[in-house]
Structure formats: structure tokens, C-alpha cells
């Protein structure tokens, strides 16, 4: 008897009770605030009458977030024999195992209206070189000295979205090319540090000016573009000056869709004139051109994710032609200046990163890099970098990477081995 009772109760619990709760939608009735309801931006006002109701992501507001990383680097075999230890440390390859806070980036993200948004990102850094100002004691701690650093403006822009097809952005932005330059943050990128082809800035890392971008779905494919007009490459110039008088022009086209996994292909281009001035030694005379060249750059990128496989690749090309008045003296990477004028050159490079995601968000990967410069054999080389990326939490990443770098035409050992570890987190 009792068994039947229990069975009946459980039967009810498992099968019949949901029947009773299976409600259909309530009959439609006029919504109190529906007609003329506000669009995005004025949502807050609509919500204001009801405390505890969450706001929407399009509501005007301000967000503060960022990311940081701590790295460990140890050169197991030096690439350039005889190079000074301080120089190698500045190149990010210290001879002795060293820890460093590589990035400490802060984002200030403002939603100005449903369609207007601003973003500023600054990086706090030890640069220039973490100088210890021993002559200036820390005023808050008697007799203590302090190391001072700087702040890099990574980007600062405001944008207005006219539609999905046209958003106009003004300010300083990361050049929209490839994958790594935009992914940008250490928790987001798979490897420990930028591939050389990105860090050597064959295309400018960032520009100041205007950017238009947008995308549209054509069937299952999303097609998009970026178009930029700017001061051009910043280089050693003040970022707020365009000494060449010509704009830097750039663009990017991409297409993405679900074809055998998720695939995104992109091509980018940039052209501009870079002019670097030095003040004349004589008061009243105009500045002198120290360096001036016309450059053209192109890049192609591929990102493919299929099941647990990830493949990223970028190839970048840059050609440089000096103007008659802006051709510098040839300064080789190693050795004394030859006294000859520098020749026009082109350079190119690529990387391929293949990863496989294992359970628990462990991603072993292999990064291959190649670099080539037409006029300097010592710049031609590459590296093989196996590594592991563990995304322990959505906002916490641990990485370990072993770089084997080889530049055959360099004097010395020609091969370097570097062990890199990194903890990166977003906050």
C-alpha cells in the first residue's frame, strides 16, 4: 500500500505535476508602456520609476575595467653574444630570469547614448626604463626613493553608430588590421607576447584621425569594412602632429561565416608618408627633415575555429621608399655605420599559430614566425614557439612558452632560447 502511495507521489512529481504548471502565455493585453516606448538611451528614464530594475547596456553610463599581466622571462641561450645585459633587458630578453609587470591597462568606457560611445585605454608602464630618481625622495615616505614611469595612451576615441553599416569614430585608435593588433590584450591573445610581424609595426600599431566601419550580413556571411584617414604613422613624432602634410590612408575588408567551423578572412592596407623633423641648431631657421619616406603596407589574416582546433595566421608586407631629402644614413643593426645612405627596402613576415583546446580550457599551441627584410640579412630569421595556454577562469589566463629563435646571419650563436611564463587577468 505504502509503496503504491510513494510510487503515485513520485509519478505525480515526475510526470503529472509539470502538467499542472504548464502554463501558456497569458492572454495578450495592452502593455502599459509599450506605445511610444523609448529607444535604448532613454531606457534609464523608463526604468527609473522602478527601483531594482536592471539597466540595459545601451543606457548612458560609464564603465571602468582593464587587464594586467605578470611575466617571467629567462634567456636560456643568448642570440647576440656580447650584448650588454641592460640592452637585452630592454629588448625584453633579460639574461637572468626576471619578472615584469608587462601591461597594466585601464579602460574608461562611456556609453554616451544608445548610439554614441567613447573609449579611452591607457597603459601604465615603467618606461622610460624605470629610472630611479634618487635625487627626488618620495615625499610621502621620508628618505625613501621611488621609481617613476609613464602612461601610454593606447587609444582614445568617440564614435557614433548611424547604423550597423556605418559607425564613425574619431580619435586615437588601434589600426584595424589582422588579428593580434586588435585582440591586443594579454588575457585575450593566446601567446605570451606579440608576434614579431605585429610588434615590428610593418603597419602602424595605432593612428590618430577618423575611422569608419560597419558590417552587413549577406546570407549567412558577415561582410565588413574599416576605412581610416589619419596623421599617419606616429613613430618618433609627437602624436598630435602630421609633419608630412599628407594623410595616412588605410582600410580593411573581412568576411566571416560558418564554413567548416567558423572562418574569418581579412585583408588590410595602408599608405602614407612619414616625416620626422629635427629642430635647427640655429634659431630662426626652419626645422630640418631627419627622415622621410613613403610607405605602403598590406596584410592578410585568417582565423579558423573548427571543433577544438584553432588556427590563426597573419602575413604583413611593407615597402619603404625614402624621399630625396629624407634619406637617412645607413645604420646596420650591428656594427659601425657604413657612411652610405640607406637604401629603399621592403620587408615581410608572417606567423601561424595552431592550437587545440583540451578539457579544462587547456590549449597547447605552436607558434611559427618568419621575418624577412630585403636589405638586411641579419633581420631575416624566425622562431618556433611551443606553448600552453590555460584559461583557468574567464578572466584569468596562465601561459607558458618556449621560444627557439634563429637568425642565421647574425654573428654569435644565432640561436636563442627563451622561456616565458605569464599570468594575465582581466578585471
Amino acid at each position, binding site marked *: 500500500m505504502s*509503496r503504491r502511495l510513494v510510487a503515485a507521489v*513520485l*509519478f505525480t*512529481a515526475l*510526470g*503529472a*505535476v*509539470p*502538467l499542472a504548471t504548464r502554463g*501558456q*502565455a*497569458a492572454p*495578450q*493585453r*495592452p*502593455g502599459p*508602456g*509599450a*506605445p511610444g*516606448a*523609448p*529607444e*535604448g538611451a532613454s*531606457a534609464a528614464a*523608463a*526604468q527609473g520609476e*522602478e527601483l531594482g*530594475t*536592471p*539597466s*540595459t*547596456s545601451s543606457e548612458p553610463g560609464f*564603465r571602468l*575595467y582593464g587587464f594586467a599581466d605578470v611575466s617571467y622571462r629567462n634567456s636560456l641561450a643568448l642570440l647576440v653574444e656580447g650584448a650588454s645585459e641592460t640592452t637585452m633587458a630592454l629588448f625584453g630578453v633579460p639574461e637572468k630570469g626576471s619578472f615584469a609587470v608587462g601591461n597594466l591597462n585601464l*579602460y574608461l*568606457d562611456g556609453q554616451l547614448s*544608445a548610439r554614441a*560611445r567613447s*573609449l579611452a585605454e591607457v597603459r601604465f608602464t615603467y618606461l622610460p626604463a624605470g629610472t630611479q630618481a634618487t635625487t627626488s625622495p618620495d615625499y610621502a615616505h621620508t628618505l625613501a626613493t621611488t621609481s617613476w614611469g609613464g602612461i601610454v595612451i593606447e*587609444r582614445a576615441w568617440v564614435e557614433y*553608430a548611424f*547604423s550597423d553599416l556605418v559607425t564613425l569614430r574619431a580619435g586615437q585608435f588601434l589600426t584595424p588590421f589582422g588579428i593580434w593588433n586588435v*585582440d*591586443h*590584450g594579454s*588575457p585575450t591573445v593566446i601567446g605570451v607576447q606579440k608576434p614579431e610581424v605585429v610588434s615590428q609595426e610593418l603597419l602602424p600599431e595605432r593612428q590618430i584621425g577618423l575611422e569608419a566601419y560597419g558590417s552587413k*550580413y549577406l546570407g549567412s556571411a*558577415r561582410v565588413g569594412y574599416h576605412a581610416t584617414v589619419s596623421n599617419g604613422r606616429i613613430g618618433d613624432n609627437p602624436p598630435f602632429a602630421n609633419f608630412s602634410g599628407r594623410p595616412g590612408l588605410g582600410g580593411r575588408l573581412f568576411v566571416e561565416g*560558418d564554413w567548416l567551423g*567558423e572562418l574569418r578572412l581579412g585583408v588590410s592596407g595602408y599608405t602614407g608618408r612619414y616625416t620626422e623633423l629635427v629642430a635647427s641648431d640655429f634659431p630662426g631657421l626652419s626645422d630640418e627633415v631627419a627622415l622621410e619616406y613613403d610607405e605602403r603596407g598590406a596584410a592578410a589574416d585568417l582565423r579558423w*575555429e*573548427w*571543433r*577544438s582546433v*584553432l588556427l590563426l595566421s597573419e602575413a604583413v608586407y611593407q615597402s619603404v621608399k625614402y624621399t630625396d631629402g629624407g634619406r637617412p644614413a645607413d645604420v646596420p643593426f650591428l656594427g659601425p655605420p657604413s657612411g652610405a645612405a640607406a637604401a629603399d627596402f621592403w620587408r615581410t613576415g608572417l606567423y601561424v599559430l595552431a592550437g587545440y*583546446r*583540451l578539457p579544462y580550457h587547456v590549449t597547447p599551441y605552436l607558434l611559427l614566425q618568419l621575418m624577412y627584410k630585403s636589405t638586411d640579412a641579419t633581420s631575416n630569421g624566425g622562431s618556433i614557439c611551443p606553448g600552453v595556454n590555460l*584559461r583557468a577562469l*574567464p*578572466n584569468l589566463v596562465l601561459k607558458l612558452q618556449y621560444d627557439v629563435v634563429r637568425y642565421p646571419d647574425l654573428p654569435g650563436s644565432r640561436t636563442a632560447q627563451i622561456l616565458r611564463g605569464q599570468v594575465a587577468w582581466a578585471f
Partner: protein
Amino acid sequence: MKRDVARWIRIPSLLGLLGALSLPAPVRAADQAVAIVVDRDNPQSDIGLEDLRSLFLGKRREWPDGTRAVPIDLEFSVARDAFCATVLRMRKGDVQRYWVDQRIRGAGSAPRVAPSAASVIRLVARVRGAVGYVPLAQVDGSVKILTVGGVAPGKPGYPLLGQLDLVEHVPLQFHTGGRGLGRAAASEAALAASAIAPAARDRT
């Protein structure tokens, strides 16, 4: 004695499973359906899974009539599990990772999360362009329900079903690569389990 205990456990479970299996399929679907709701001024009456995905991943930010879209997420729940698995094709953790990455890229922030279905409905009713998802049983007349791929919630073939077990079987993928779930393929046992402890599932 042990046999008796085993029988005590087995018989009701089988009966319960039988009860679940005996329900007509459309009714089971209606029970679990997660409705896509928009404000009543939205001229849309239907939306595809891919369109929903692009809206909630920030790849598309406006409706076809040009109104700015305001997606609203529902706090962790069976409905959200179903939505992540079926529409976003991601696990919950992958969705978090996706938005961490998007923020670092400077591409925007995740949709705001409403704490309850009632809260989602209140917001959607009042914000032009808003879109949310809630259990069908909790929808009232203040919002408009969209069909998904031409199928109304509760009808056979409706793809958004709030069965938690779906999520547990999402294959490991990169955050934008998850596919493979498809629609309601949960076992009947999972259906039975889903009726036992919804509160516990909501906490997962």
C-alpha cells in the same frame, strides 16, 4: 533488505519515467519553451536563430527597421542555459570568456543581465528595441512573442527548449565554435530530472 530498497527506488523511477514518456510531445515542448520577447512596437514577428545569435553577441546592433537593438540577458537559469546552448552555441563559461575578450578588444560590453523573468519582461515592455528570452509560462501581454524560424513557442519543432541537460552535452569548443547541440535532443530521463529539482539547476 537491500533488494527491497533497490525496488523502492527503481519502481517509482520507472513509473515516473513512464509518466514523462507518456506525455504528448507538443505538451512537453510547451512546458520547456523559452520565448523570445520584444516590445510591442517592434514590427518583427519572427526571428531566426542566427539573427538572435548575432544580436546577443553584439555583431548586429539594430533591427531591420533601424531601431537600436537592446538585448537583455536573464540571470543564470534553465532558460539561459537553453539560450546559450541553442542560440549562442556556447557554454556559460564560454559566453563569459567571449565578453571578456570583446571588452579588451574595445568592441563593447555584454548585454545587461536581468535578475528574473519578470524583470526582463518589464524592461522589454518599456525599452524600444529591447529583446529578451523568458520561460513561456511567465510571459504576459505587455510584450510581444516572436516565432523562431517560423515556429511559435510550444509548437512542435520550436528550437528553444529549456532543458538543462542540453547544456551538459555541449562539446568542448572555442568560445565561438560551439555547434553541435542542435535542438531538443535531451533524453526523457533528463526531462524527468528537469522536473525534479529546478531550483538546484537554477543555481548551476
